[in-house]
């Protein structure tokens, strides 16, 4: 394989590689702004300059020319080159800022230039703390500025669209945002307008930036020029904790970071996973952040009256036992594989028919990208467990004839597969998440949501991905504490690792299914206790449909599961 020497270390590379990406992959940071791996390379910020040279060969003999020390002579051109657009060639020798004073000085010069017209209002800028300009200016920039003139002024606080606000003075004209609308979503809603140092992004006159993915521009904007409207001035990034997890928005299995403060989800941003959502997520998947904070079912109830977890579990167990095999179990495409699995085990233990689930596929329009026709995150997981979708035609009579309906998470009334009348006279055990749940419950055992539990979702492509708890629930249990790694090193990149786990505020009194279903089972004398959800998944992954999907293997990026569907052509090597 061809080789390149970067700061004295030799690396192999695939032909066609660009130098900046190669360096980043190899762990050598080169400051940069405009380069984004998913989009075209304009090389306009000029921050990623390096010194690159190629070996000199004798024209006739084609032999490398050696210097007096017997080392191969390298031809470094007269200019520094932007690494983002530079094709790596065999034998190339590269000096980054780490090994060349000239490069380091050029990068500092560029940062000085980037900052001369920059407002430098970090203290009131939402980007501060996660701002590539701020960070790189500290790391690679000059000590101060020699610019003593009036700065260029441009429009500020421009509501570009429902979700994005622009401060053009902070813009460094990297064109990432306009390239995003031109190349990724192809809505072409943004353009740079004007010329020279009056340049800034804008919509066409009077038009609204309402791209369904508009907030992705705030993620990729390397400064605070584009910010999410819902998150402006809500919190400083260093006051929040960021947890890598999976969104429960739809079946695309969007990898996200959930940002919390005081046990409230304040912000959701996409997390890179090239096998799932790449770098992106739709606006709609961010704006659900409030559903984790508001209207939450908190504390178990018996006929609407608050009670203790023990009493509620005992009563639910008693009701299941009484109904025997006449229990209608409903699993959920919103619940994790682990919770659904335990529910199946419970049904099996009492001899009831296997749980079914409400299949929501086809209930909304597919945008061909990250919004699928399925609003639920784990339909594929339910199917792989062997659960069948409910037949809406048969469900009302099944509910009416059952002696007990046992519901995990889903809301069949809201889903319009059941009416409240159908349940008249039939008691209901419910593990629900919100007070707005429309299916009435006799016993309510509030359920932790995706941001509070540990478990597995399988996305539409059969990729098993791991949820991690981002905020604490009141009835914290040991598995959750272990999962959030209290007392262990955590890979929080931003924020303090300890704040939320000791914050009593805003804790919802709910429990994950894998904590409460075993409690209910115990009341029946059935032992479904697992030491942790990881152990449940270890057992589930023994099934061929889940082969390999252990928590350890899924880690941050998930694992693709085997597809047994014979109709799907398998690619053979």
């Amino acid at each position, binding site marked *: 394989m061809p080789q390149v020497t970067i700061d004295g270390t030799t690396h192999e590379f695939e032909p066609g590689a660009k130098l900046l990406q190669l360096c980043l992959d190899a762990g050598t940071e080169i400051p940069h702004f405009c380069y984004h791996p998913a989009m075209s390379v304009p090389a306009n910020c000029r921050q990623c300059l390096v010194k690159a040279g190629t070996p000199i060969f004798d024209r006739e003999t084609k032999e490398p020319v050696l210097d007096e020390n017997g080392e191969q002579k390298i031809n470094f051109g007269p200019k520094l080159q932007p690494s983002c657009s530079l094709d790596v060639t065999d034998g190339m020798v590269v000096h980054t800022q780490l090994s060349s004073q000239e490069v380091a000085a050029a990068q500092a010069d560029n940062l000085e230039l980037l900052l001369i017209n920059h407002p430098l209002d970090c203290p009131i800028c939402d980007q501060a703390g996660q701002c590539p300009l701020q960070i790189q200016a500290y790391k690679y920039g000059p000590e101060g500025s020699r610019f003593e003139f009036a700065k260029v002024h*441009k429009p500020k606080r421009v509501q570009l669209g429902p979700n994005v606000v622009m401060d053009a003075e902070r813009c460094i004209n990297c064109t990432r945002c306009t390239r995003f609308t031109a190349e990724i979503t192809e809505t072409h809603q943004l353009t740079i307008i004007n010329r020279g140092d009056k340049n800034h992004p804008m919509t066409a*006159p*009077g038009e609204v930036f309402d791209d369904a993915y508009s907030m992705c521009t705030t993620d990729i904007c390397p400064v605070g020029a584009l910010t999410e409207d819902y998150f402006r001035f809500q919190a400083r990034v260093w006051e929040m904790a960021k947890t890598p997890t999976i969104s429960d928005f739809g079946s695309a299995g969007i990898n996200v970071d959930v940002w919390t403060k005081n046990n409230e989800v304040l912000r959701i941003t996409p997390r890179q996973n090239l096998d799932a959502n790449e770098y992106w997520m739709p606006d709609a998947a961010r704006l659900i952040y409030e559903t984790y904070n508001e209207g939450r079912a908190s504390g178990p109830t018996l006929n609407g009256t608050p009670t203790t977890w023990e009493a509620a579990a005992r009563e639910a167990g008693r009701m299941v036992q009484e109904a025997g095999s006449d229990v209608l179990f409903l699993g959920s495409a919103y619940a994790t594989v682990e919770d659904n699995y335990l529910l199946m085990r419970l049904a099996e233990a009492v001899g009831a028919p296997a749980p079914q689930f409400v299949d929501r596929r086809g209930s909304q329009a597919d945008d061909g990208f990250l919004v699928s026709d399925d609003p639920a995150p784990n339909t594929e997981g339910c199917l792989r467990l062997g659960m069948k979708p409910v037949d809406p035609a048969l469900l009302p009579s099944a509910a009416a004839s059952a002696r007990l309906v046992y519901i995990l998470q889903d809301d069949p009334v809201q889903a319009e597969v059941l009416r409240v009348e159908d349940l008249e006279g039939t008691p209901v055990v419910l593990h629900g998440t919100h007070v707005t749940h429309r299916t009435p419950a006799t016993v309510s055992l509030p359920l932790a949501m995706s941001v509070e539990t540990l478990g597995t979702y399988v996305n539409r492509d059969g990729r098993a991905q791991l949820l991690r708890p981002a905020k604490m629930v009141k009835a914290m249990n040991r598995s959750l504490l272990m999962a959030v790694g209290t007392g262990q090193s955590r890979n929080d990149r931003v924020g303090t690792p300890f704040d939320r786990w000791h914050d009593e505020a805003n804790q919802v009194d709910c429990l994950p299914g894998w904590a409460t279903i075993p409690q209910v089972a115990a009341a029946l004398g059935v032992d479904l206790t697992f030491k942790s959800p990881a152990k449940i998944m270890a057992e589930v992954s023994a099934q061929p449909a889940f082969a390999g999907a252990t928590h350890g293997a899924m880690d941050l990026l998930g694992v693709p599961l085997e597809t047994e569907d014979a109709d799907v052509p398998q690619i053979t090597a």
Partner: protein
Amino acid sequence: MMTPDTPGPSVSPQPQYVPGQAPPRVIPDAELVWTDEEAAQIETFRAQYPTPDGAVMKTLWLAQRKWGWLPPETMHLVADTLGVPYAKVYGVATFYTQYFKEEKGTFVFDVCTCFSCQVCGGYDMLHYLEDKLGVVKGGTSEDGLFTVQEAECLGACGSAPMLQVTNGPYVHNLTEAKIDQLVDALRQGAELPFESVTLPQDGDEMGGNRRTDAQAVETYQTPPVSDTIH
């Protein structure tokens, strides 16, 4: 020698058009259409380039000639006609100085003050015009007839100082008297003739201008203006 204004402090401006607020309509719907002839012309433009985008600049010129400047609805029409994103057309229109993004006077004087024109008295001419018309550069006279602008080199440095009238005819070898004449002629609705600049070597070898179909200006008869420059 006179120079451009000092770039000074200012406040953050509002964008010309605010997203979500419909821009004021200038051209009524009934007039916002291409004539058959124009539509045919646009088709010709289109055929000249492998992509419809190639025809954007020419179609914008057509729109500006038709409506005098480019209110948003005209840029929108250009975009729709060619099937090119509206924002893209707007980005292009704002890049070039000759596309007028706001309404101007009937006549726009682009007075070159750049380089050769600067050293030959371009600023004197600019200020003379400003004083004469009672405007500050960038502004339009009260009667709405004249807009005065400072221009970059217009490629007529040999006949400096000079100006261009509304993206059209050049007026060479400006003097105060020539400006007076120009303004009077325009007020009276005169068509400006095309001025052909005589090559000095033609002067020697052909006794003046070589063209029999254009009015000549003789470059080298300009009085030296450097006397006034300090």
